[in-house]
């Protein structure tokens, strides 16, 4: 009898020890894991703050985990039907790139209307009236409500950033023959009617896509915040990617596999949460 009791207790203790890892599981879920199903986007959605794609469970890629989700200001999450490869949020517009079809679909999230445009880099102006579209070296400024478009031929290898409060911001690089230098890069802004409004030199190595702050005065790239008026670097920080500006002073950045809210002025950061976005898929609305 005692022997049986000892054996039972020994096995019970061993079983409890074996199953301890299960108790730890789920306390800190990996980011980007699908946690719940969400409803399809409808008119009840509030203003959208950010979008993301939930991560696919390893080896199980399905339609749901490839669907873009939008989070509104009431922290409700909605599924944006139709899938897509890239997402940009410009105010009430969601701009979804479909690479295979070679189109960008512009969803008006308020009216539910959709329009298709040729592939390229796109953003809608803060007042929601003008769609900027860059393809190769041609910048097209197209009224959202329809009407006459303006096209501008820009410099070589332009990089599209988006809208400031004044116009559309691009980086253009010029080849340089100076010793120790291959390019000189400039920020160039075009007004909504297609006029070039000035050029600001910036370090050529920082000429990747920038995230413009909601007030249109600064822009962030991985590692730096630039003053758009002078091209000077205001702050440096550690990040793999910049998802966008949370407000006028704080960024959301990706470090390794997690998203963080970062104040670039002080360097302080806190976890962005709930972080359901697969790493690198979080996109903040251009106009918070």
């Amino acid at each position: 009898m005692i022997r049986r009791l000892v054996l039972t207790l020994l096995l019970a203790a061993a079983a409890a020890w074996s199953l301890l890892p299960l108790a730890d599981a789920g306390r800190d879920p990996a980011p980007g894991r699908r946690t719940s199903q969400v409803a399809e986007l409808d008119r009840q959605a509030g203003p959208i703050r950010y979008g993301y794609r939930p991560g696919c469970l390893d080896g199980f890629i399905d339609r749901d985990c490839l669907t873009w989700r939008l989070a509104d200001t009431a922290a409700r999450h909605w599924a944006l039907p139709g899938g897509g490869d890239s997402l940009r949020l410009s105010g009430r517009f969601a701009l979804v790139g479909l690479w295979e079809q070679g189109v960008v679909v512009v969803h008006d999230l308020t009216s539910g209307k959709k329009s298709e445009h040729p592939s390229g880099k796109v953003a809608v102006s803060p007042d929601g009236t003008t769609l900027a579209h860059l393809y190769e070296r041609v910048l097209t400024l197209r009224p959202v409500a329809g009407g006459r478009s303006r096209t501008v031929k820009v410099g070589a290898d332009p990089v599209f950033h988006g809208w400031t409060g004044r116009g559309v911001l691009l980086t253009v690089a010029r080849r340089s023959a100076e010793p120790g230098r291959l390019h000189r890069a400039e920020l160039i802004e075009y007004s909504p009617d297609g006029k070039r409004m000035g050029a600001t030199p910036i370090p050529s190595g920082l000429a990747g896509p920038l995230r413009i702050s909601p007030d249109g005065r600064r822009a962030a790239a991985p590692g730096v915040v630039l003053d758009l008026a002078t091209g000077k670097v205001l702050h440096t920080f550690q990040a793999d990617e910049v998802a966008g500006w949370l407000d006028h002073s704080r960024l959301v950045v990706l470090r390794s596999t997690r998203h963080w809210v970062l104040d670039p002025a002080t360097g302080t950061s806190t976890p962005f949460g709930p972080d359901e976005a697969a790493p690198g898929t979080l996109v903040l609305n251009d106009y918070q």
Partner: protein
Amino acid sequence: MQSEPDQPQPARLARFARLQRLPPGFFSPGVWHYLRVTRLWRGVGLTAGAVVSALQFGIYASPLLLGWFAGVLVAEHRLARARPRTPPARVALLSPAATAFWSVCLGVTVGLLVRVVILDPAELTARLGAFAALAVLLAVLSLLSRLHTAHEYVDETAVRARSAQVLATGGGVSTVWLALGAAPLGPAPGIAASALSLVALFIGTRPATGRPSSRPWWIPASAGLVLAPAVALIPPAPTPGAQVHMGVQYATRQACSDAGCTHWVLDGGRPLPEADADPFVIHPDGTAVVYRDRTTGRLVLRDFLKDTARDLPGDGEPAFSPDGRHLATTGHLIDLTSGKELPIPGLVRVVGLSDRAVVGLTAPRTALDGELVAYDFQGRVVSRAPFDPSQPAWLVPGGKEVFVLTRWGDAARMEVATGKVRARHRLDTGASVDFRGWDGPDRALISDWYTLRILDLASGKLSRAPADYARHTVHREIRS
């Protein structure tokens, strides 16, 4: 499930009598019942093991063995339940070889289980493996005890001896397999466990007749426990990088949604979880790496030969000299032979080292203008030239030129002494490119998305790198 026919099969009975050294023509209903029950459950277990093995798309020994032995345990349990409970008897049912085999397996298993508890694995599978080994061990011991109890008949002795023989040999090898799965010791013990199975098969199929004994059965069967401390204290499996006998050839880091796959992994197998994503630099002979510690944020030189980790001064992207004797970080040059650290205040970013000089930049990436400066190993300036500090640049082997690769797809060589552009090419890869390493003095390895290419610096010609280049020439980062 089809049950066994009730009619005794003379051939099977004759085989059993031969194996147990019973008189020819010996028959007893008890023996026939024993043969029916054991054959049924062993068959069920073996079939289950075969199904599991097939589900793994192959024929694997461990599911077959463990399935079969699970059947043995069920059969023996059913037989034991039908027997009357009697006091222990001084009888040796196991042959000396089976006793020795079980004894060794018991010692090894107990040692391995202690080892698992000491290592305290976090993985559920390792813990469940240890639990299964313990459960099987206790089940076998319990059944062996029940077999070594008083009884009267020759046929009962015969079946008990056969049961004990099968339990000791099959149980011994099964517990070792399970415990090894929970506390892996590397490939050699795995091979030994496979050999153990053959030994078990040989011993387990030898005659076992049972004989009177002057001492309890468990005394000789427990002698192998003396092995347990030695097994438990075998030095742990190599911790990441702690025992590198050959130099590290390459490292990978896969960025994905699982926290575990963001670690750097050396040579495809040894994780270095304490290392942050950037920077990560491998010593030229592979005996050390430099990384940023995730916890402290400091640069660390991890020397695999000395098994040491040393905090380094400075920051930024460090670089080794080609002979491996010097290491430069932002503002510092370290002589790895003497351990001396030489401050170089103007060195804001390291471009690379030759065997005689450190080449670096005087301004950060965020500046519009700067200079490319070469310092000798005493920290004296050898040359200065204007340079765009935001351009990604690497020192070309030989130390006289730098290689620049811009996000605009331009690749160029520039003289260190003057900044003069010696060759410039536009790369038409259709994607942004990253520098990965060198394939000789005039051939750079670059990658666009998942393709590793060789760029001939003189002609600008791009060619796809051979498949095994990623393994042997560069450290790389894989994104998924």
